[in-house]
């Protein structure tokens, strides 16, 4: 798409005209500042205080952070779990989003339309996590246990949701199931938008199969979409928390799947130790933004 970059003259713009122009951005920017920028700054500031919502915050400097890293073993565990879950589901979900977007594009149009809906449906379903509890349940109603028992593979039900050997794999399956979201749609669209003449030119130049097309043309043409998808999948994979509460309950059995998001929910939503909770939020913020920036930089170097 040829990009039009006819920049308008900046000089000689009247006051009235500038005012009208700013009136377009003002409402969004005002709300964005109030509901996103301000809360981030407030979270960072509050993380240096003791604050219980009843009395005004008292500054205690780094005490929250010292307690988090040195005295709160559950936090350290939550940090480890967050990183482990993200390291597994992030790259796998990202890869799956791309692979299925690409495969769907290789198939006839009708199949592609239905396929896109099928793969995106878990994201649409939002609150359907309860169905996973029914499938994996360890009592008589657990469907998967029912099947395994009927096949004679097991004699007593496996406690998928309460046995630490199974909890992480079960969570990974569920997170991957719901990970084909906005990034996936971006890939679907990006692949369809690759300039067709590039494929024709490549065919003349000796590209003989679709795998070569994928490697030499599709991937390089899609860098902006790949970047956007990466941001989406990093942010969501580090924020895994609600799913755990919905499927495994809170806290998950023996805190096996305790993540930063769960720990934050615990201190912020239940114990009202807001200063401490904000320190957890700040750690999560730095982890998310830091990972995003590092991966973004790394991705932008590919193919240079």
């Amino acid at each position, binding site marked *: 798409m040829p990009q039009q970059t006819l920049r308008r003259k900046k000089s000689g713009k009247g006051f009235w005209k500038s005012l009208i122009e700013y009136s377009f951005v003002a409402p969004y920017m005002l709300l964005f500042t109030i509901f996103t920028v301000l*809360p981030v700054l407030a979270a960072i500031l509050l993380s240096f205080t003791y604050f219980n919502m009843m009395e005004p915050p008292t500054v205690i400097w780094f005490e929250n952070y010292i307690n988090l890293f040195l005295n709160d073993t559950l936090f350290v565990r939550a940090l480890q779990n967050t990183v482990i879950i993200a390291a597994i589901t992030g790259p796998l979900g990202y890869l799956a989003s791309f692979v299925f977007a690409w495969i769907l594009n290789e198939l006839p149009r009708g199949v592609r339309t239905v396929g896109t809906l099928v793969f995106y449906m878990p994201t649409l379903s939002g609150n359907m996590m309860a169905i996973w509890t029914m499938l994996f349940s360890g009592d008589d109603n657990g*469907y998967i246990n029912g099947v395994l028992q009927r096949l004679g593979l097991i004699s007593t039900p496996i406690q998928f949701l309460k046995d630490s050997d199974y909890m992480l794999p079960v969570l990974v399956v569920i997170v991957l199931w719901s990970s084909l979201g906005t990034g996936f749609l971006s890939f679907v669209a990006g692949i369809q938008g690759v300039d067709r003449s590039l494929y024709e030119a490549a065919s003349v130049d000796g590209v003989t199969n679709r795998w070569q097309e994928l490697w030499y043309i599709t991937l390089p043409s899609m860098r902006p979409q790949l970047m956007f998808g990466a941001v989406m999948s990093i942010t969501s994979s580090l924020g895994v928390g609600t799913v755990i509460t919905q499927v495994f309950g809170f806290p998950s059995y023996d805190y096996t799947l305790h993540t930063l998001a769960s720990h934050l929910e615990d201190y912020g939503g239940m114990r009202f130790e807001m200063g401490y909770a904000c320190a957890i939020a700040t750690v999560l913020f730095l982890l998310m933004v830091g990972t995003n920036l590092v991966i973004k930089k790394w991705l932008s170097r590919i193919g240079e």
Partner: protein
Amino acid sequence: MAAVRRVGKRHKKLNRSAAGTFFLIAITTFFGIFMIMPMVYSVSTALKPLDELWTFPPQFFVQNPTLKNFSDLIRLMSSSTVPFARYIFNTVFISVVGTAGNVLISSMCAYGISKLKVRGSNVMFQMVVLALMFNGTVTAIPGFLVIRAFGWINSYAAVIVPAFAAPLGLYLMKQFMEQMVPDTLLEAARIDGASEYTIFFKIVMMIVKPAWLTLIIFTFQSLWSLSSSVYIYDEQLKTFSYALSQILAGGIARAGAGAAAAVVTLLVPMIVFIISQSNVVETMATSGMKD
């Protein structure tokens, strides 16, 4: 815009082996079944009569389908202290107003940033991109304090107004406008004496229709499944999604009605998505992030 569509419809593909296509169809079918299985199980459970819900081992597919769970759901709804229609009204109201505000405010700002290029546009956009890199968990506590300071606890505004300024909306809208709205067209309209607001509503908003339809889906979908119990404690103001979770909390005895409710909840966003899928694809084509 048209070009994107046409490329999507390429009929003749080069260098394709039949074995490869078969292999790809096999993989897609296998994983497609995995993706759709929980939904199928929900629908099947929703149609099961009571005795089948208690069968051991549980059956995947329903043997004697019945709509009894749906009528149970309606009965459960009408026996609740708050009329169920009220929950539905709350969800619809929040979804519709939140979505409309999000689309309007994001589009206006996207126009200011991508076409009017007001001073500071770059910084503003970079901030929004940065906001895509973390989620609401991080800002939950101060966000709650802000809403409390406004006196919005226990009102629709607590959920609706923050949704107006969601970063994804502005991001998608700005990318689409930048790549799809030709500057020459806007210049021509300005020479003809059209005001910026006329240009925005009469020209830009018409061209970016696929983008705001997409935004409608995303915003609607997230607001539709919102349970909102943190900000709203008045039973009268709670959402459908919250009521659904209450039914499910009733335990196994209500598994059938719960599955029926889940099916109903999924149905609405699904229909919205099916209707506007082609717009979504068109919009997401411009969603790429420059380094």
